[in-house]
Each structure stands twice: as C-alpha cells, then as structure tokens.
C-alpha cells in the first residue's frame, strides 16, 4: 500500500511517534543505564514498525488516535481540529491501523471522513470563501486536497456561467506534444 514516491506518504510516515515500551533512549544510555524493559518512549513510525515486526517492542496507539480521541470522534467529528492533531491524520491513521492490526480504527476514520466530506464540499461551493479560512485551516491534508479539487471545479462552472470562459482551447495533451522536442 502507499506510493513509494508520494512525498505526502513519506511525510505521513514521520508524523507522530508511537509509544514503545522496552527500548532504551539516548538519555538512558548516556546515564550508563542498561536497556530497561517496560519503559515507554516515542519513535518514528518507520522505526517502530520494523522493531515491532521483530518482536523487540510492543506498539501502543499515540494520543491523537487513543481511546479518548476515538470517543470524541464517535460523538462528533465536525469541530475537531485535525490539522493540529496531525496534518496527515487519515494517512497516518491508516498506517497505524495496519501496523497495530486495528481495523476498527480505519473504519472509524472512513466514517469520519465521510461525515466531514459534506462540510468540506459546503465550504468549497460557497461564494463567500473568505469566511471559511478558519475552517480550512482545521482540515487534514487529504481533506484540503478534496477542498481544492471541489473549489476548482465549482469555480470553473461559475466562470462559464458569467461568460468568462468562451474560448474552446486545444486539449492539454496536444500542447504537451507540440512543445515536446521532436
């Protein structure tokens, strides 16, 4: 899953840290301590995942996906500031749910996305876009993408209705071929 070259995907990998008991940190090592079992530290997901695969550590859900947050999302997800929680809330959540084998997390995320989709579209199709800045800043990157796409296509229709888009232009693919060196 995931796209190897997708920069968003790579960033999502680094986003939050997973709590891991059972591994020493730099601090403990500089204090001369041995590796202590049952300590909880945070690691980037890419490292935590491979450590867990080898049974060195046990993974726990980070706070933005913990049971308290899940209860909040079940109650109402409309006013949650996802961007503050994690800019790649969905992508990272999906990785987590696969890494920790918790399918109900990704199902919850799908539900949340669906409920917020209508709000996002609503914001994109309104004409008074200035008032929506605050709402937009609370969206996660995936939702922002959806917002941008919806806004672009709505604006195209609006422009056409005003009569601003009269000319039939040659297709993008043709201009690409024309500009390409022969």
């Amino acid at each position: 899953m995931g796209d190897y070259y997708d920069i968003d995907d790579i960033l999502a990998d680094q986003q939050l840290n997973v709590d891991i008991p059972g591994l020493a940190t730099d601090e403990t090592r500089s204090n001369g301590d041995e590796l202590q079992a049952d300590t909880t530290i945070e690691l980037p997901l890419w490292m935590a995942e491979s450590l867990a695969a080898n049974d060195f550590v046990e993974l726990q859900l980070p706070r933005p996906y913990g049971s308290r947050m899940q209860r909040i999302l079940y109650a109402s997800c409309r006013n949650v500031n996802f961007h503050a929680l994690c800019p790649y809330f969905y992508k990272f959540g999906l990785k987590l749910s696969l890494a920790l084998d918790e399918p109900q997390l990704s199902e919850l995320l799908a539900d949340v996305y669906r409920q917020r989709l209508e709000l996002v579209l609503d914001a994109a199709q309104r004409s008074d876009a200035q008032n929506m800045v605050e709402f937009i800043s609370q969206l996660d990157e995936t939702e922002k993408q959806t917002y941008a796409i919806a806004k672009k296509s709505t604006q195209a229709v609006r422009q056409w209705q005003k009569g601003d888009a009269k000319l039939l232009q040659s297709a993008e693919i043709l201009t690409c071929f024309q500009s390409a060196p022969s």
Partner: protein
Amino acid sequence: MTSTKPTQQFTLPELEFLAEDTPITIIPTHRMDTLHFISGSYGPFQPPAHIEVPLWLARLLKTKRRCHIQAPTWLNCRFLERKYDEEQRQPDRFSNLPYQYLEIAHVLVTCAEDDIPQSHTIKRLIQDLREIRQSKARAGLAAVNPVYLQMDHLGAVELNEIRPVFCQAFNHLRKLEKDLGDYIVPSYEDTQSTTSYSNY
C-alpha cells in the same frame, strides 16, 4: 513540467461544444438554399416554415439575424417552476431534466434572449434549479461508500463538477475500508424504490 496525463474532467467550453449538436427548431427569416456541411446538409430554408437544425447552426444563423429560435418545450417558466417544486418535494432524488439542460439554456439565453419569452425569469429559475441540485449532489456525495454511488438524472455539467471530487473521495475511502468482507452491494431495484442515491 506539464504532465501528459489527460485531466479527469471536461472544461465547460468543451461541454458546451458537445451540447451544440442538439437539434433545435428555428424559423428562418430569409430564403436560403440547402447548406452543406461535413456533418450533414440542412435546408432549404423557406420562411415561415419551421426547420430543425443543430444548435451550433441555429446560434450562427441567429447572430447573423437570419432566423428566430424556437425555445425547446422544457425551456419555459411553467415547466421549470414545476421542476423546481418537484426538486423541493423530493429531497433525495433529482427531477428528470434533459441531460444537457444547463449548456443548452446557457447558449440560448445568451445568444437568443429576444426569442425566449421571460428569459430573465428563466435565467433565475435555471440558477435556482442548479443550486438546489448542487446541494443534493453534495449530500449524495457524503453518502459515498467504497462500492458505488448512484445519482439518477444528473446533468452533464453537474456530473462533470463532482467527478474529480468523487474520484478522490472514493479512492481515499477504498484505502480506508479495504476489508469489505461482508459488504452487501444493494441491488439496483432496491434503491430505485427508495432513494436515488445509496445510503448504505
């Protein structure tokens, strides 16, 4: 670098171009011989006999003041008002309008304003219809599931507008809900009788 990947949607002028093939009735004001085009021959034009031509030809003749355009049967206030009522009465389905109603109305209202009775009211009604249908399409999109989405009687422009959003949302949801083990696809007949887009 520009990508060579074709875009997911048509541009609006392209949609307008496609809609211009719709046949429409005109009343010529001048006598003319048959006109020959690659797409076919139209004429002879003998006023005041009605004749059916494609919309692009009607628009051309109209701008040269050689004909009057007869508005299609659905492009009048009474019909559109009835459709608007229908839209309001049924919050979960779209009324049956011509597939390209927005484009045809746009072309006719801009080029043949004087031939269409109450063109201002019609403009407003079309806009009202578009807005109420847009909000329905939005609600329908929110009911998207990773299997399919059904919205009957959606127009070309409206479809084109939601297509890129839908594709993105659909792909995203499919990644999240990969496990579709016991997912039952509702049959077409079931959804027909209840709502026009699925709520499952």
